[in-house]
């Protein structure tokens, strides 16, 4: 589903964020991307979401070569992705419902369908009762759940998350990760950048470790206990 070939990213200051990264993530996989801050996790996600473009190498998502996705096609490409951010990035002056509805409104869904899907997504993250609440009335964990509902409401093929539990206490982090697992179980390809090693060790998914912009380790999930 996501394939990086010899991908390098060098920033203006001559600093290499990624060097010759080869990575393949199959459809329906759930993969954790780890490493110290500055290892290149966020850069990799920014390349996949076309916020930035690689200096060298090629990236394909769902068989689509991102190098050829330009102009208005960038917007259409992004509608196949779901994104979750560490700082939630919610619209603070809009209630939870409107925040979750954003990808559907952008894609031009009819009003009734927007309402139906938004309620379904909010229900899945357990926030149906708070659809009229503004983000500041919600706890940090609840805000992140709104962010996740927004990321999956349009049923994306790929779900990308950058440090989704960075600001949450351990208990809430586990809850959020389990939420991602549930979406993965229905077929969504999930890629999560995190440095919460203790948490991901317990979850038993594939872990790709980056250091200095290179892939240092790629550990397949342990075989399910017999």
């Amino acid at each position, binding site marked *: *589903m996501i*394939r990086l070939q010899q991908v390098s990213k060098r920033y203006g200051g001559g600093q290499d964020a990624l060097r010759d990264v080869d990575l393949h993530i199959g*459809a329906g996989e759930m993969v954790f991307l780890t490493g110290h801050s500055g290892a290149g996790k966020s850069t990799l996600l920014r390349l996949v*979401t*076309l*916020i*930035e*473009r690689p200096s060298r190498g090629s990236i*394909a*998502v*769902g*068989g*689509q070569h991102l190098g050829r996705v330009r102009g*208005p096609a*960038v*917007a*259409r*490409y*992004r*509608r*196949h*992705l779901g*994104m979750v951010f560490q700082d939630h*990035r919610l*619209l603070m002056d809009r209630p939870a419902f409107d925040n979750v509805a*954003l*990808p559907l*409104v*952008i*894609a*031009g*869904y*009819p*009003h009734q369908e927007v309402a139906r899907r938004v309620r379904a997504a909010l229900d899945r993250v357990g926030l149906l009762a708070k659809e009229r609440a503004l983000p500041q009335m919600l706890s940090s964990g609840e805000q992140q759940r709104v962010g996740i509902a*927004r990321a999956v409401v349009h049923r994306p*093929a790929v779900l990308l998350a950058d440090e989704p539990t960075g600001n949450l206490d351990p208990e809430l982090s586990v809850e959020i990760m389990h939420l991602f697992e549930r979406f993965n179980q229905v077929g969504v390809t999930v890629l999560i950048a995190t440095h919460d090693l203790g948490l991901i060790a317990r979850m038993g998914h594939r872990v790709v470790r980056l250091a200095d912009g290179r892939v240092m380790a790629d550990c397949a999930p342990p075989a399910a206990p017999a």
Partner: protein
Amino acid sequence: MSTLPQRAPRGARRRVEAWAAQHLQCAVASLGALCHAPLASLLTAAVIGVALALPLSAYLVIRGMSDVSARFANSGDISLFLRPEVTLSGARRLAAELSARADVAAVEVIGKEQGLVEFRSALGMVSGLDALGGANPLPVVVVVRPQSVQEPAVEGLLDALSKLPEGEFVQVDRHWLARLQAILDIAHRVLWLLAGLLGAGVVLVIGNTLRMSIETRRSEIEIAKLFGASDAFVRRPFLYHGLFYGLAGALVACALVFIAALTLHGPVQRLGAEYAGQLELSVPGPLHLAILLAGGSVLGLLGAWLSVGRHLRAVEPR
């Protein structure tokens, strides 16, 4: 490798409905945002209104003067004063010959008696004429209206008339008209320059007003773009903002010009009465209102487009 799922194609009608609903929602939201800060919106509309009112009022004044000039445009009549010995019948013969010419539109003969009557009623110079002791000093006059008011044609006709043996002298007074026309031509150009400059001013005012509103919604734009919003989607609410500013400004402009025209109407009419009702200041009509509204909308949209375009480029992938 699996491919990205294609969205199930939705009916064209539902698409159009969703699109129309988005526009309606955008329009209502923009209007709501403007009404939310009525004073600021009103001030912006007032600035735009003043900028739009100036060219319109200048146009109305110039048009009033053009009307005057147009009314005199037909007065390119040439008066051919005949020698005193030429009789009325001689003059009629001459008139018949002249009206056969291709460059002559009409010919009228004014006899001595008729000339005296007109002279008396027009100028009230009764005492002066009466002092002449009853003798009519006026010659027979042939008034020739040229076919064309173009300078070379009139010159040719004048030349021919002045060579006639029956004629004493030829008189045509078009110089003041030419001068007025030249002044009006300059005024017209100044009007276009003024309209251009003030139009650019309106674009800048709207662009600058929206710049602030875009800044406050910058993160919203970024988030929308991350979730696949097209440029058109991001631009839409701001375009409606610009459109409403332009429309509100046009309404303010119309009100200002209307008030100005009403204030000046009385005095101008009194002045016009002194000149046999040939001066009139027109009040803006439905056509002007339509042009103002259209102009305001276009300028508003343009200002918004330029302003948002700059910010859209700022959040593009690098």
